[in-house]
């Protein structure tokens, strides 16, 4: 049953005609169960406790800032005429982007039969949901009177007697992000049910067994159930793939349907999608590299997985670079003077530092991944992905702030400066994200055991029978 694959094997090398293993070590089904369950079953490590306390403190700080904001008014932000969108929307677009890797790994890589996704998709999906939660916070509080945000829902209002305005891209956003959050949650939860059943069956504690028993809905592993489950999973993947495309497309519509120079350009939809995948993968790697070490998952999340993700970062980073170039070229080719000005202003105006940070981090730093050594050394990947995260935050900053700060009317131009509340909320949103992620690591199966076992089964089958007949 067990496979004799040496632990130190370099599975990043793949000879044509052979497939490198995705699960390393003296592994059998039971060992996968053990490796994954120990993460949640053993006592929390000191690093986890410290991490959790820090994140939780930051989350509290975010809460306090939100209360302060609601009590005092949006004037506590740096948002001033004409930059009314400012940091909250920068943070919103940033987090929505982060939230795309999860569904991409789960859905699109699933549709492309990329089996290496199995050991990373669970954590990535969780990140998606937490990132969408962070993202949803910002427009929610940016509406000003946050307690009336429910007016965005199309419900028969008794005191307004009117409906939301469906021709506004901001309302499309509400639908897109909430649909995305819901479907991601369903997808994540559904994928987790068989593993929650494993947790249930391993629980010694009665309460724990009952809690996981309820969450796993009485899953028995029946093959009829598995068949429908697999079908539903494939269908959800097929639905989530166009959904993931649509969400950032609609976020890009927020900008691109307007006439603000630098925003109104048709490449925005695919460019935002590529950027989102780019930033999402960077965030997954940033979190995965320390986690796999701390949680002892190196046999399941192998160097090969990191290598593949780096390649996706390289590909999407280059796409983003091509989009930057195309935008610049068309701004000149189109010969619309406002458009031309907007792009020159981005690169050489008062926010030149933001623009060049963005270009360096997003276009130049991922090019290092052409070198295999960089793709397979975890600490280098970690550093580069942090740069990518910073760069992608700056991309949104450049788009939102530079375009708004200088548009058609020079007398209305202004320079944006964030306040301490802006900073606190950005940092606090990381607190929210990390708190949820750390809780997830402790309470839920961090790796999709069922799918990893099925990958292992294929590996065993190939080993024993090769391609073709059995």
């Amino acid at each position, binding site marked *: 049953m067990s496979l004799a694959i040496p632990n130190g094997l370099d599975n990043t090398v793949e000879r044509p005609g052979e497939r490198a293993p995705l699960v390393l070590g003296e592994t059998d089904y039971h060992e996968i169960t053990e490796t994954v369950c120990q993460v949640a079953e053993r006592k929390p490590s000191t690093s986890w406790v410290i991490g959790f306390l820090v994140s939780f403190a930051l989350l509290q700080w975010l809460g306090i800032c939100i209360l302060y904001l609601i009590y005092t008014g949006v004037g506590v932000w740096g948002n001033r005429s004409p930059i009314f969108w400012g940091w909250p929307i920068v943070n919103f677009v940033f987090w929505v982007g982060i939230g795309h890797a999860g569904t991409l790994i789960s859905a699109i890589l699933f549709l492309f039969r990329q089996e290496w996704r199995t050991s990373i998709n669970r954590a990535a999906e969780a990140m998606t949901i937490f990132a969408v939660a962070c993202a949803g916070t910002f427009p929610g509080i940016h509406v000003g009177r946050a307690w009336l945000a429910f007016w965005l829902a199309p419900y028969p209002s008794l005191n307004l007697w009117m409906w939301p305005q469906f021709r506004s891209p901001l309302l499309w956003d509400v639908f897109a992000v909430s649909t995305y959050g819901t479907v991601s949650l369903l997808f994540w939860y559904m994928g987790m049910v068989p593993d929650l059943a494993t947790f249930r069956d391993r629980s010694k504690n009665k309460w724990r067994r009952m809690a996981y028993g309820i969450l796993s809905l009485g899953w028995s592993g029946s093959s009829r159930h598995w068949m429908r489950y697999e079908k539903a999973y494939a269908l959800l993947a097929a639905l989530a793939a166009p959904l993931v495309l649509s969400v950032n497309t609609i976020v890009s519509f927020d900008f691109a349907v307007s006439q603000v120079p630098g925003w109104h350009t048709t490449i925005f*939809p*695919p460019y935002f999608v590529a950027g989102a995948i780019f930033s999402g993968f960077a965030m997954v790697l940033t979190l995965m590299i320390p986690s796999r070490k701390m949680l002892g998952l190196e046999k399941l999340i192998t160097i090969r997985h990191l290598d593949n993700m780096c390649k996706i970062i390289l590909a999407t980073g280059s796409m983003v670079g*091509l989009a930057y170039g195309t935008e610049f070229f068309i701004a000149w080719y189109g010969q619309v003077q406002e458009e031309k000005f907007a792009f020159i202003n981005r690169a050489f105006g008062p926010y030149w530092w933001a623009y060049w940070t963005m270009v360096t981090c997003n276009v130049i730093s991922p090019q290092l991944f052409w070198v295999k050594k960089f793709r397979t050394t975890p600490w280098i990947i970690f550093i580069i992905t942090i740069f990518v995260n910073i760069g992608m935050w700056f991309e949104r900053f450049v788009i939102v702030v530079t375009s708004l700060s200088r548009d058609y009317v020079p007398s209305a131009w202004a320079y944006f400066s964030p306040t301490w509340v802006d900073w606190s909320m950005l940092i606090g949103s990381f607190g929210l994200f990390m708190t949820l992620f750390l809780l997830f690591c402790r309470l839920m199966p961090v790796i999709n055991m069922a799918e990893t076992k099925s990958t292992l089964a294929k590996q065993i089958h190939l080993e024993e029978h090769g391609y073709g007949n059995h």
Partner: protein
Amino acid sequence: MSEHDTPAVKIADDPAFKLPTSLSSLSMPLCIGGVAVLLIGWACGSSVSAKFGMSAYLTAFMFCLTIVLGSLFFVMIQHLVRAGWSVVVRRIAELYMVMVIPLGVLFLPVLATLLFGNGTLYNWDDPTYAEKNFLPLAIWTEKLRWLNQGWFTVRAIFYFAIWSALAIWYFRQSVEQDETGEKAVSDRMQYWSGPAIMAFCGATSFAAFDWVMSLAPMWFSTMFGVYVFAGSVLAAHCTICITSFTLQRLGALRDEVTVEHYHDLGKFIFGFVFFWSYIAFSQYMLIWYGNIPEETHWIFERQLGAWGWIGIVLILFHWALPFLGTMSRHVRRNAPLITFWAVYLLIMHYVDLYWVIMPEAGSSMGGILGVISSLFCVVGMTAVMIGLVLRVADQTKIAAVRDPRLQESLAFENI
């Protein structure tokens, strides 16, 4: 674990890998007939107007070029992701991608029209264009820095150089592997696929700007390259599907291309129908919503008269109908059905290009003569291309017979 039997790998000289003789004898007639039909088409078009004739020619040219570029992309992306399933059909794409060289020759009439006619095809080449359209001189001089005969020619040569280099290199490597079966060849092809795709994307995007978008010199859309690319990859998958079906009907690759491969091709066709619609909708939506005169005129012209109807045809029959038609797994797993949709979508792909290019040749479709001209041009050009594909195919194998992943491809099964 598989339930049905997997065919064994046949030896390289097996007749299954040889182009059927009924096809190879068609090569010459197709080429000669194609050129004749193309000339008639062009002549008919020129009798409407010189501009109309060349535009019909350009539409046909772009139709073939998009298929060829899509095939080139197909080959490179399969190497990039080390795909196993596609090995049995990859050679078909490889045969189409080398057609970029004859298409380079077929581009010469376009170039000649530019160099010797005053705006016969491209409006910006007309010295009186700015004056006629009341364009500010400052803007127009700046525009002409990009759109001028010399620089345009240099760029066209550059694009063809990139594409040809990639196509020839990949084709040679693949054919070399037919002889040697070296795994190192696959390694090489994979190694270079990343930079190759980047070069390809840059060249293709700018070629789309140059050759199609600049027909309306003042119009611009950053997404236009992606739009052409989406149609191109869709057309390539359709072409591969049709070609392998035809070959199987005539006795080649009988056991090798299975229903699983059609299923996968079908999935990609479905996916790219969606992707094309997504790009087309986004482009339309942003221009429609922004409502800036610099951009809307392009779409406005395409909503007048017959063009408007063609636009509606594109929505209904390039998106809605094939989207629903290829949605079902049963359709994709039925080779004749998915081939029918592939043929249908190639026709729609032509309509798409027609709708993009032809309105620039004048507000009318040129009457009966115009329609005949457009049809003859595209049929002629495609016939020439197929004739040449058959000629190349006759001299080589029609599958990558010693690819190390061939066994995997044969055994491949969809879950």
